[in-house]
């Protein structure tokens, strides 16, 4: 996959994520102030899935990005070497 395709893919995924996040907003009936007032009644462990979701997404994104970069870097260095060798050969012939 080329760099442009990857960036385009990332942008599309990002935009879809944002749209998915924002869409429920238009159907909301909850009053934010009321919710903030009622958080004292929340069970401490009740929000575990949100905590799990936040950290899972974050680490997946980080490791995915690091892996992508290290792979890409290796590929590019190899490509540079191949091109240099080809040019050197051409120079010898010329």
């Amino acid at each position, binding site marked *: 996959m080329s*760099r*442009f395709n990857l*960036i*385009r893919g990332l*942008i599309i995924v*990002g*935009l879809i*994520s*944002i749209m998915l*996040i*924002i869409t*429920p*907003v238009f159907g*909301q009936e*909850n*009053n*934010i*102030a*009321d*919710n*903030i007032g009622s*958080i*004292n009644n*929340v*069970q*401490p*462990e*009740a*929000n*575990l899935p*949100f*905590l799990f*979701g*936040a*950290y899972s*997404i*974050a680490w997946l*994104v*980080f490791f995915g*990005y*690091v892996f992508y*970069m*290290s792979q*890409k*870097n290796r590929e*590019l*260095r190899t*490509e*540079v070497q191949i*091109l*240099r060798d*080809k*040019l050197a050969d*051409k120079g010898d012939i010329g």
Partner: protein
Amino acid sequence: MDRYDVLRRLLLLTSGIMVVTVLYLIFIWVPTEKNLGVSQRIFYIHVPVAWVGFLAFLFVLIGSVGYLWRRSRGWDQLAYSAAEIGVIFTTLMLMTGVLWAKPVWGVWWTWDPRLTTTLILWLIYVAYLMLRSYGPGGDKGARYAAVMGIAGFIDVPIVYLSIYWWRTVHPQALVGPAARGELDSQMYTVLMVSTITFTILFIYLLMERFSLRKSEDNIEEIKAYASSLSVK
């Protein structure tokens, strides 16, 4: 292996050790906040990624100014690399933010000044990356992007100060020059360790991406040279 590679590996090792340490601090050492429950722990990743996002865009600004001033590819490569990482961190800031907001505010998203200005910031730098991908290449593309990188940074202080300029439901700032919020000492320690960890991780990612961008540019130059040889 040159000095740059040694430093990169050292940063990767340090950030790996610090990530394990900070996860221990977040999930085991720090007490649970009595009002917000366990979801408050999202804050230890949300605030550092927000800080790193801003820092990345500061590097875009520096790289863009440097490029317009010196016209050296290195500055442009720095700006591009920082923009890509900044977008990733800002995406994470938005994502962790909505996951924090739902249990606390009862909604995934609200058009609060802090949230709205952050979304605008994200869109500006996504547009920057789109300009780099689909816009003109070479010196012209780099010049356009540099102007956009400088103009886009104007939104960073607006995001940071939005909670003081407008009415908002977002919590007060706990780090930075305008910090006013108060935090338990243990929670503050974890926040600081987490911020340092993510900053080290950012420096590593930036060095890695910068090296990648340099290799990409080198390949383009060699290809152009090779094609000029074949024309002759």
